[in-house]
C-alpha cells in the first residue's frame, strides 16, 4: 500500500464503508436484473457525486476538490471490489482528464462544474472496432463553414448511452493509422445526426455503439489543437488505463478474499479444503501476483501525479498486469468454488465476466505488452 496522507486515507475509508453499505454486489445484481438501460444506478451515482467523488480530480475553482490520481485510484479500487457500476471512470476520470489536459477555459467552465456535481456525464469515444487501436481513428471531421461536420462510427463506448457530452476522436487529416491528423471534439449526447445503440454485454454496463451522420459542431467544440489530438489523447488514455487498473485491482482483491474465505470454510474429505497443499500453493501464487500488481498500479497513479517521464510505460505495465491478475484470480475463484461458482446465484461469474470487459477496454494485456516493448525501444 502506498503511503497515504490524511485526506487520502479518509476518502478511501469513506469509500470502503459506502460500498459495503450502499453498493454491495447485491446492488449490482439488482441493477442488472432490473433491466436498467443505463448500466448503472443513477441514485447511487448521485450519492457518489454528493460525496465529492465525481470532482476528485477537478480543481476547486471548477467546483471539485483538486485532489490527485492516487486518490481517485483508491476510490476506484473500493468501487471495483463490489463491481459498483457507475460513470466514475468514464466521466470523473476520463472525460475530466480530457478537459483538464486539452480544454480551454470556456470549455472547462462549461463542463467541469457539471461533472463535479454529477449533473452531467462525460465519456470518451475512441475505438472503431472490437480492439483498442487509438491511431486507427477513421471517423471524419470536415470543415463546414466556421464549424465541423462529423461522420463515422465509434464502437463499444463506455457509458456511451448515458453520456451527456462525448469526447470524440476524429480524423481531420491523413489516414487511419496515422498519429498526426487526429482532433478531439466535444459532442453533445443529444446532437442531431448521432445515433446511439445500447449493447447488452456480459458485464451489464452501459456500453454503446455510436453512429455519426453529418453531426454539426461549432469551432468551439475542438478540444485542444486541430490535427494534434493524438498526444493529449494518449495522455488521457494513460490516465484511463491507470484508473481502470485500480478498479481491476480492487475487484481482483475481492475475488481473492472471497475465494480465500471459501478455502477456509468448505469441508471435503473431513477437512477444510484450504488444508490441501495443491490449493495452498495456488492461493500463495495469487497473493504474490496481487502484491506485485498493486505496486504497478500505485506506481502508475503516483507517476501521473508527479509528472514522471515514464507515465506511458507505467500505465501499460499496470493495465497489462491487472488484466492478467484478474483473469488468474477470477478463473481460480470459479474453479476453487467448484460447482457453486458456476451458478448465476454466486458472485464468481460476475467477476469473471467483468474481468474480460475491463481487459478489453483501453487495451488488453497483449496490446500493452507490445506497447511496453515499443516504449522501451525494442
Amino acid at each position: 500500500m502506498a503511503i497515504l496522507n490524511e485526506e487520502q486515507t479518509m476518502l478511501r475509508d469513506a469509500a470502503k464503508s459506502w460500498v459495503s453499505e450502499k453498493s454491495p454486489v447485491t446492488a449490482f445484481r439488482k441493477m442488472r436484473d432490473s433491466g436498467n438501460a443505463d448500466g448503472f444506478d443513477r441514485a447511487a451515482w448521485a450519492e457518489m457525486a454528493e460525496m465529492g467523488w465525481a470532482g476528485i480530480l477537478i480543481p476547486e475553482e471548477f467546483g471539485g476538490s483538486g485532489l490527485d490520481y492516487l486518490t481517485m485510484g483508491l476510490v476506484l479500487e473500493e468501487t471495483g471490489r463490489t463491481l459498483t457500476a457507475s460513470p466514475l471512470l468514464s466521466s470523473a476520470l476520463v472525460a475530466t482528464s480530457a478537459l483538464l489536459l486539452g480544454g480551454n477555459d470556456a470549455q472547462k467552465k462549461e463542463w467541469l462544474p457539471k461533472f463535479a456535481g454529477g449533473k452531467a456525464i462525460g465519456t470518451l469515444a475512441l475505438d472503431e472496432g472490437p480492439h483498442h487501436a487509438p491511431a486507427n481513428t477513421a471517423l471524419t471531421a470536415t470543415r463546414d463553414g466556421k464549424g465541423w461536420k462529423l461522420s463515422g462510427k465509434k464502437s463499444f463506448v463506455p457509458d456511451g448511452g448515458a453520456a451527456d457530452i462525448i469526447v470524440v476522436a476524429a480524423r481531420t487529416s491523413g489516414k487511419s493509422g496515422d498519429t498526426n491528423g487526429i482532433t478531439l471534439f466535444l459532442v453533445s449526447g443529444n446532437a442531431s445526426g448521432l445515433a446511439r445503440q445500447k449493447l447488452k454485454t456480459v458485464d451489464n454496463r452501459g456500453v454503446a455503439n455510436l453512429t455519426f451522420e453529418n453531426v454539426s459542431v461549432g469551432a468551439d467544440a475542438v478540444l485542444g489543437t486541430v490535427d494534434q489530438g493524438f498526444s493529449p489523447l494518449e495522455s488521457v488514455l494513460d490516465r484511463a488505463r491507470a484508473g481502470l487498473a485500480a478498479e481491476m485491482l480492487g475487484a481482483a482483491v475481492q475475488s481473492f478474499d472471497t475465494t480465500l474465505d471459501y478455502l477456509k470454510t468448505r469441508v471435503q474429505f473431513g477437512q477444510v479444503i484450504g488444508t490441501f497443499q495443491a490449493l495452498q500453493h495456488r492461493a500463495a501464487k495469487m497473493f504474490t501476483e496481487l502484491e506485485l500488481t498493486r505496486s504497478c498500479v500505485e506506481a502508475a497513479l503516483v507517476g501521473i501525479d508527479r509528472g514522471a517521464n515514464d507515465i506511458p510505460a507505467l500505465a501499460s505495465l499496470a493495465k497489462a498486469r491487472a488484466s492478467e491478475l484478474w483473469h488468474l484470480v477470477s478463473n481460480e475463484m470459479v474453479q476453487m468454488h467448484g460447482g457453486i461458482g458456476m451458478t448465476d446465484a454466486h458472485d464468481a461469474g460476475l467477476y469473471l465476466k467483468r474481468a474480460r470487459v475491463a481487459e478489453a477496454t483501453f487495451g488488453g494485456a497483449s496490446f500493452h505488452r507490445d506497447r511496453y516493448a515499443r516504449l522501451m525501444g525494442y
Partner: protein
Amino acid sequence: MAAAESLNAELESFRAEARDWLAKNFPPSLANVDVAMASAMAGFKPSGNAGLWQERMAAKGWGTPTWPKQYGGGGLSPQEAKILTQEMNRIGAKNPIGGMGVMMFGPTLLEYGNDEQKSRHVPGIVTGQVRWCQGYSEPNAGSDLAALRTQAVDKGDHYLVNGQKVWTSGAQYADWCFCLVRTDNTKKHEGISFLLIDMRSPGIEVRPIKLISGFSPFCETFFTDVTVPKENLMGPLNGGWTIGKRLLQFERAGLGSGGGSAGRGGDARGLDQIAKDYVGVDEKGRIADPDLRARIAQHQMDAKAFALTIQRAQAEAKSNVNPSAVTSIMKNAGSRLQQDRAELLLEIMGHRGLGWEGEGFAGDEIAATRAWLGGKAVTIYGGTYEIQNNIIAKRILGLLDHQ
C-alpha cells in the same frame, strides 16, 4: 497372412455395406447437424428428418454400434465400428443417439446389471427414447463424493429414498436417474449402493440451476419419501461405490476425448482463420498482433499434441475397449485445451466476443461467449481438475499422502 487378408476383405465388405446403408438412410440435410446434442440440451425429441434419422439408426442399432445385438445394439466389432465412424464422418453424419445413457450409464449397465435390468433398460438407451440423468453430487459431497447422504432405507419390499442431489444434468428432461445412495451409515465407501430411480415417482422435485452462461443444464433434485422397487438396485447392496467409479471412468473418457473441440461456440473454423478476420494481417499475411499469434501457435501445438495422444492411446488400446487410467490424463489435458481455446477466441474477438444478447453481436459471437462461460464447468464436473491430478499422482505415479 491368409487370415489377415480374409479379415481385411470382410472389413472392406462391411465398409461397402455401411456406405450403402448410409446413402439410403441418412438425410443429407442433416450433414454436420448434431441431433443428439441439440435434443439433449433442449429436452425435445427430434422430429422431421432428425426424428427419421434417429429412428433408422435406432432400428439398426448403430447409435451404439458395439453393444450386443440381443439388447438392440449394433453388435459390431471395434474395427467395424471404426469403419462406420469413418463412413459417417465422410458424409458429415452425426450419431443421433447420445446422452448420458449412451456415454456413461449404458456401458456400466452392460457390465454390472443383471439380465432383467439389461433387458429392461438397454433398449430404451439404444433407441434414444429413454433419457437418463446422473444422481451423484450433493451439496456437501462434491469432490468428496463418498460423503453423500441421500438415504435409501430398506422397507422390506422397497427402498424409501430421502435426500438431495445437485448438478443432475438434464434432470428436468430425464425419464430415469442412476443414483448413488447411502444404505449403510456406519461405513463410508462400503455403505453406498447404486439405485435406478424412475423420475416420475411421486416425491421427486427438480429445480433447474441457472448458470453463469445463462443456461440451466443442471438441476437440484430433491427426493422426499420416494418409493423405489428393490429390483432397481444394480449390483450388490453396499457395493455401489465400485460401480459408481467405473461409470466415472466412462464419463471421463467421453469428456476428455471431446477436448479442444467441444463447446467451441458458433464458429467451427480454426483460431488462426478467425484471428485473421478480427485482428487483420500484416504485409506478409501473418496475424497482425504478434503476441496473439504466438499464443495461437502455442494453443494449436497443444491441440495437436492432444490429438496425437488420443491417436496413440487408440492405437495402443487396439481391441481393448476398456478405458484405462490414462483417461484421467485425457480429461485434464482436454478440458484445459477447451478452456484455453475459448479464452483465446474471446481475445481474438475483442469487444465483439463480450456480448450477452441482442443487437450489435453476431450469433456465433454470442455462442462463443456463452461457450466460454459454460466451459468453465469442464474442470469441475466429472471429477475436478484437482481430483484428476490426485488420481494421476497417487494411482499412476505412486506418490503417497502425508504420512
